[in-house]
């Protein structure tokens, strides 16, 4: 029999995974995903509460949380994109220029795996152009 406590257990596990992930990860997007996972644990809690008490309050609360989480994700991802354009890196350890005077920056012993080189898009190998089009193409390039 699945009781309220099972749902709360799942919620607690999700929240705990999110918290641990947030504290241990270094990739900005993974960190933020972990923070969002914490919110999803809360939503499960509230939905379980709502169905347990037979009220819509929990579901309404859950809807609000999903909405606010979307706003937060929109803002954070826009910020991360801006930061990535500046530094070409998503490592949160790169961002420690603002810190206490005289305190050395924290250096991670294990470097992040190097990101794969930028894939510049290459055009697909063109097939043989139809006769008519080829003529027109040559005309255009000559002009």
């Amino acid at each position, binding site marked *: 029999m699945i009781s309220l406590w099972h749902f709360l257990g799942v919620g607690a596990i999700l929240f705990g995974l*999110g918290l641990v992930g947030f504290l241990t990860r270094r990739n900005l997007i993974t960190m933020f995903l972990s923070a969002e996972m914490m919110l999803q644990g809360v939503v499960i*809690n509230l939905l379980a509460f709502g169905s347990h*008490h037979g009220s819509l309050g929990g579901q309404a609360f859950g809807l609000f949380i999903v909405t*606010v989480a979307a706003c937060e994700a929109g803002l954070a991802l826009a910020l991360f994109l801006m930061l990535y354009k*500046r530094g070409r890196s998503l490592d949160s350890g790169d961002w420690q220029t*603002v810190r206490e005077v005289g305190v050395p920056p924290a250096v991670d012993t294990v470097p992040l795996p190097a990101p794969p080189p930028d894939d510049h898009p290459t055009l697909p190998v063109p097939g043989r152009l139809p006769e008519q089009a080829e003529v027109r193409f040559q005309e255009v390039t000559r002009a």
Partner: protein
Amino acid sequence: MPVSAEQYTSLRAVLGDHLMLFAPEVIVAGTVCVLLLLRLFKAFDKLHLNPVAAGPLVVALFLLGTQWSAYFDGSAGATAFSGLIRLDPFAAFLRGLLLVFALLALVLGRITGLPDAADSADYATLLLGGTLGMMLMASANHLLMVFLGMEMASLPCYALAGFLKGRRAGSEAALKYVLYGAAASGVALYGISLLTIKFGGGSFEAVAKGYADLARTSSLDAITAAGTLMLLVGFAFKLSAVPFHFWCPDVFEGAAAEVGAFLSVASKAAAVGLTVRFLMTVHGACADVTFVPKTVGVGVMVVAALTATLGNLAALAQTNLKRMLAYSTIAHAGYMLMAVATFTSDGAAAALFYLAGYLPTNLGAFAAVAAVRTATGGETLDHCRGLAKRSPATAVALTVFLLSLLGLPPLVGFAGKFQVFESVYSAGQSFGRLGSTTLEGGFYALLAVGVVNTVVSAGYYLRVLKAAVLDDSPDLTPRPPLQSGEGEKNQNPLPSPLRVGEGAGGWGLTAFLLLLAVAVLVLGLAWNPLLALTSKAVESLPGR
């Protein structure tokens, strides 16, 4: 829960009244929408929108003013919108404070040119959106509104912290704030969900009743304890209380001074209001007067003492003015928490008084930093040297603000500190009369910590004053502003909206600073009206 026909009719009947009381928030929300739409028209491209946004704020303040007497003679003000928020004198006081601050922040932004005309719509939108969230925090009466208010207040602040898009430090500030904030709001929300499950509803009345039942049977279970703790972690993050203060110095250093003022004054006012309302509601419902002070109260006392001490000690070592003011903000949060820890209406009134005095003082201090920045392009102690010779009026205003932050009479900072320490002392006495010697000793120790901290804080405030008044001006040729830690990594700064040079700011900024300095002085000389107002405002709070 389905709504019955009678409930529906009664909700319909009071909706108009509630909307009238809620009108200031509606106006602020409408202004945000209008500001976003104005950008669609070419005619508004060159127009600075800060004054446009200030107009509706004046209207909102006027509306709040017309309801003011109704709030304070008790004929208006109760829960509104089926108990989600509570529009009482306490909320009215804080909402007025926040509106006044938003107005002043818009004026300051227009003078210093932090948002240029092209960016002004974004700046005003974010500022007003944040203010709206903070007003909801100040009047929240339901855990759902607590969460919504905190998020609505936080999200615009994240964007404002990174408002200087071209600056590496600004981006870093926004990054740290957004990550820390996301985790803190997650933790607070988990606490809220636990409390909602435990007490079968999120309204403060239901929660307070649940706590009262627990207090009667003295059975504090793990779920309630964890939920309360996690919710208080969220409050502590907003208050930048130790040990959740780590974001504060970095964000303040990276963000512009004008944004720092908004984060330190408005955000703090809303967070103090929310904390006071929540804790006082719980305290008021418990039959045993010492239950809440003995459990949560001890924690608040310890956090308050740590916050004030760490803020003041760390501020001693700073050379960047904004970073120093950030630590000073943390320290002042500690003083306010001391007043909150008393759980008396005297303490709540003292916290409100402190906030009202803190508004012109700290806004002025940050505006003075902005004045130094516009004149020299930097914000360190070195840039402050010789300020008295370069710009005597700014130096005088800065002196007034720093001495008020330090708490010297006859400035408003002294009046605020006096109220706080007096409330802590009388709380100690009253707990002594109740026979709780531990709490009595705790409050006297808190008082001692507060007094010692005030003495310590003289160290860094006076250091800035000495640099500004006594030292000679070093050779400071205006150059593009660089923030600490920038430099070699940022050879090619993007165009920044900040103006630098002797002409920037000009007489407008000087007049703004002197106006705030006069306000600090007047509030410090004649504090009876404000005192009467704050003690009347807290009468609506449940509690003793």
